[in-house]
C-alpha cells in the first residue's frame, strides 16, 4: 500500500482552534488521488471544522514571548495551524 500525505495550513483569527479561518494553503502529495477540499472560501470556517472533516492536527502555534521594543510590530499572520490527512494511493 502506498500512502501519501495531504497538508493543510490554516491561519486562524486567534490562537483557539475554534476561531475563524483567515487564510489557507493546501498541498496534495496524493496528486489528486485523494479527497479534495470542499468548495468555498475558506474551505472550512474554523480549525475545529477541519478536525471534524477528518484532518489531523500536526502543529499549532506556540505563544511567543514579546520582545522588548517590538511589542507593537506586525508581520506574519499569527496563528498558523498545520494539518495532515493520509491517503491510500493503492499498490
Amino acid at each position, binding site marked *: 500500500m502506498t500512502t501519501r500525505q495531504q497538508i493543510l495550513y490554516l491561519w486562524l483569527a486567534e490562537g483557539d482552534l475554534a476561531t475563524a479561518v483567515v*487564510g*489557507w494553503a493546501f498541498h496534495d502529495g496524493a496528486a489528486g488521488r485523494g479527497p479534495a477540499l470542499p468548495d468555498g*472560501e475558506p474551505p472550512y470556517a474554523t480549525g475545529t471544522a477541519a478536525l471534524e472533516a477528518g484532518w489531523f492536527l500536526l502543529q499549532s502555534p506556540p505563544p511567543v514571548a514579546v520582545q522588548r521594543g517590538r511589542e*507593537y510590530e*506586525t*508581520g506574519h*499572520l499569527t496563528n498558523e495551524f498545520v494539518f495532515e490527512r493520509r491517503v491510500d494511493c493503492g499498490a
Partner: protein
Amino acid sequence: MPAADHRLTTLEVARFVVDGYLRFDALVPDALNRRVLPELAQLATTKLPQAIGLPPSEDAVARPPSLTPLSQCYPAPSALGEVLRLPAVRGIIESLVGADPLFDHDFVHMLPPRMPHWQHLHVDAILDTPDPTFDIQLFYFPDAVGAGEGGTRFVPGTHLRRVRAEDVSRYRHVLGDERFVGPAGTILIFHHGMWHAGEANPSDKTRWMYKIRLNPRVPQVRLWNTDDFTAHHNDAADHRFATMRFDSVAQVLRKEQKWQLGHEVRYDLVQRVRLWRYLSGDDRFDADYYLTRLEQRATLAESSTPRAQS
C-alpha cells in the same frame, strides 16, 4: 480628488494608510493608452533581457537610471512620459511622495496569452527599516483586464507588516485578497509594502501592466490638498470605547480588513496611527487611545525616577 486641484484629499490619504493602495479607474484617456502600448512593447524588449542578466541590444530603448528626478524621465516625445505628466497622475504622486520624486525603477509586466506561470505572494525589494517613510508604486493598466485575464493579486492592508520579501509565499489564499479587474487606463497606487503577486493568464489576450517605483525626497508631511484636514484630523480622545467621531481620520483608520478578525486589527491600527502621525506631522494623534495611554504612563515612570543621592 477635487476637480480643480488634482492632489488627494485628507480622507483619500487616510484610505491609502488603511488599505495600502488607491484605485483610479480609466484615469488615462484611451487615445493615450493606445499610444502607450507600442512603447511598452518596445521597452519590454530592453527590460526583460536585462532583468535576466543579458546585455542590452544596440537598439535598446533609452530609459532613465535610478536616482533620476521623475520630471526628467521619458521626455517628450513619449506617450509614457505623457501619462506620468498628466495633471491627475502628478497630483496623486505629489500627494504621497512630493512633486518631483526620484525614479527608482520601472518594469513592463506583459503576460502573453495562455501563460500558466503565476507568482507566489511577495513584497517587492527586501525587508524594510521600521521608519514610516515609504515609496509608492504605480501599477498602470493601459488595456482593459477582465476576470481571468491575469490581473495582479494583492492583499489590502498588508503593507505595514514587516516581513522578508518572499516569506509570505506560504499564504496561498488570504480572505479579502483581490485580483485586479478594470477598464483601460486604470492606475493603482500601492504603498511599497503591499503583499502582491502576478497571476496566470489563461485567456487569449495579452495582459499589459507598467509598474514604476518612486522614492520621496522631501518629508511626506501634508503634501496633499489639506483643505479638509482640520475638519477630519482628530485629537487623541477619539476613542471607540469612550467617545468617538464618525467623520474623523480615526474612523477611517479603524477599518477591519477581512483577514483582520478578532483583536488582530488593533495591532494594525497602531501601525496606521504611527504612519498618520508622520504624514500629518502630529505626534500626539491617536485612534482608540492605544498609544496615548502608554505615553501617558511613560511620563509617570520618567517623573518617578529616583534622584541621585547627595
